[in-house]
């Protein structure tokens, strides 16, 4: 597979397809986007991730042309999009509500964009058929949008926005209206279609799992600011701030005084050994629950803290133990249930030991 070498963002020879340069957007006094710069490369599946109201949709709508930046430049393929109206941009969008035209059937919905380009009839027909095949909806061509299911509507919307073979496809919370099972299937379908068509996808989502599943890179946003842009794995393993660590997955944060090799976290407790080159001072140790081992006896590890089990969440494949450590903080540790009835020796109110290596955690000073 060549997938793992797809990293144009690390290649200085590559030029970006989409470039946001110091883009700011204000609605009256409210700053929705604050001096954002992003480069997105051809063939990427780029995710804008953040809580609702963080500005991710505004950022996307500016690329589609529905909002105008207050300052800064958005360019596509090197061309400044400032004065290009939405209907002239080589960008198509799949709307959160799907925005299918209720008075047209599936076929006419998909053909809408092609007809606007004045394509001859036979070419329109050929392209619509191709799109229907791509999303496996040939049988439903003559149905109106209100006569098909939510999942099918989602696929019609996808086919319609891909029909004109845009340089960039924008997806605004594309799977928000689907139930969990269907959403997971559709995520893989999306990736599949993205690879098949080679189109650059940009997705807006508040679902971190979805962003992790589909994208090559994720921009984590908060209140109009980009907190970090990186691959899903890097975001998870090397978040640059508590905000990102907490937003992507589950994390334990232990506050303390970082002295360059140890974190002094509580009076009278052994300092925690961590390998990190973070600047000394006030800092937080970020520890993922699955990187903490839990045992009844003190384990031989770089770090070990005693605690009391106050809650156990059995998730089937995993169990999450909530352990109260000296000082009263609650730490979550996760263990796979590899054997049936394993770990049954640990139960509520037991005194246990939490242990981890010096490379398991990350020191964050922000």
């Amino acid at each position, binding site marked *: 597979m060549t997938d793992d070498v797809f990293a144009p963002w690390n290649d200085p020879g590559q030029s970006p397809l989409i470039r946001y340069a110091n883009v700011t957007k204000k609605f009256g006094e409210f700053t929705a986007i604050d001096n954002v710069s992003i480069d997105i490369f051809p063939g990427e599946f780029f995710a804008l991730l953040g809580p609702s109201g963080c500005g991710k949709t505004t950022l996307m709508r500016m690329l589609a042309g529905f909002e105008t930046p207050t300052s800064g430049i958005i360019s596509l393929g090197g061309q400044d999009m400032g004065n290009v109206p939405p209907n002239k941009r080589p960008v*198509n*969008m799949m709307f959160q*509500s799907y925005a299918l035209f209720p008075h047209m059937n599936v076929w006419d919905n998909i053909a809408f964009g092609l007809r*606007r380009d004045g394509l001859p009839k036979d070419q329109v027909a050929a392209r619509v058929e191709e799109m229907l095949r791509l999303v496996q909806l040939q049988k439903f061509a003559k149905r109106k949008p209100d006569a098909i299911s939510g999942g099918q509507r989602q696929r019609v919307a996808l086919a*319609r926005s891909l029909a*004109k073979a845009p340089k960039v496809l924008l997806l605004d919370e594309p799977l928000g209206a689907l139930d969990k099972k269907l959403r997971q299937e559709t995520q893989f379908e999306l990736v599949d279609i993205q690879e098949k068509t080679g189109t650059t996808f940009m997705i807006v989502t508040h679902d971190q799992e979805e962003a992790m599943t589909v994208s090559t890179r994720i921009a984590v946003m908060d209140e109009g600011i980009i907190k970090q842009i990186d691959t899903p794995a890097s975001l998870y393993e090397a978040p640059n701030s508590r905000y990102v660590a907490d937003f992507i997955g589950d994390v334990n944060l232990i506050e303390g005084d970082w002295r360059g090799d140890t974190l002094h976290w509580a009076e009278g407790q052994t300092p925690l050994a961590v390998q990190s080159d973070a600047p000394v001072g006030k800092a937080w140790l970020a520890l993922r629950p699955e990187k903490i081992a839990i045992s009844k006896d003190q384990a031989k590890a770089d770090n070990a803290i005693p605690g009391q089990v106050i809650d156990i969440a059995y998730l089937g494949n995993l169990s999450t133990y909530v352990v109260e450590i000296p000082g009263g903080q609650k730490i979550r540790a996760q263990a796979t249930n590899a054997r049936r009835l394993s770990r049954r020796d640990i139960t509520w109110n037991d005194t246990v030991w939490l242990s981890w290596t010096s490379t398991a955690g990350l020191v964050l000073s922000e």
Partner: protein
Amino acid sequence: MKMSRFNVVSLTLGFAFLYLPILILITYSFNESRLVTVWGGFSTKWYGVLFQDERFLGAAWVTFYVAFISASIATVLGTMAAYVLVRGAKFRGRTLFSGMIYAPLVMPEVITGLSLLLLFISIGLDRGGFTIILAHATFSMCYVSVVVSSRLVSFDRSLEEAALDLGATGWQAFRLVTLPIIAPAVAAGWLLGFTLSLDDLVIASFVSGPGATTLPMRIFSEVRLGVSPKINALSAILIGMVALGVIVASLTTKRAAQRP
């Protein structure tokens, strides 16, 4: 659920209050007798007499074309106004304009009629069918814009954005996406305008001139000389047309509301 006796009585009383006069009028339009208040047996002869009366036929023609043209003008203007007020970019005083478009709905007709008359005189417009059309278009437009804007408010804006996104121009987006979806509301607005024009007396009396007499004006002037059974027949026909218009308008509005 079975209605209680109290509900049955109050409903009967209420509807009797509303419809008894109309019912009596329609009944007496089939009166054989020449005397309006004395029942002389069933007959449709007054309808026959009516359809031979040149003056009534002329008035009917004026009424019809005035209603048709004024409703059409009102529909175009009202839809445009509604579109701008609901959809257009926010501009200074938009709320004021939205409020002002409703004002003629509650303005006394006498005042509307008088002010239009003064306007037509001051710009030296000859009064006749044309001025009635203008006057009716003016007040029908408010009704159209009320009906259409209520539909536009519930209209998913992303549909228009999707059309633009797929390469449609603003006008194409309106013609191919917005208009077909709001069409039932536009049609209901037209029917409402048509019906309103049909039964207007006050404003038409103010702004009409010689040679342009509408049916309500004709009826009013005839009645001043004494009620003839012919008038009953004419009124019955008018009631039928207005009722039909209102029913069709409300049905199309209902259908429009059921669409997503």
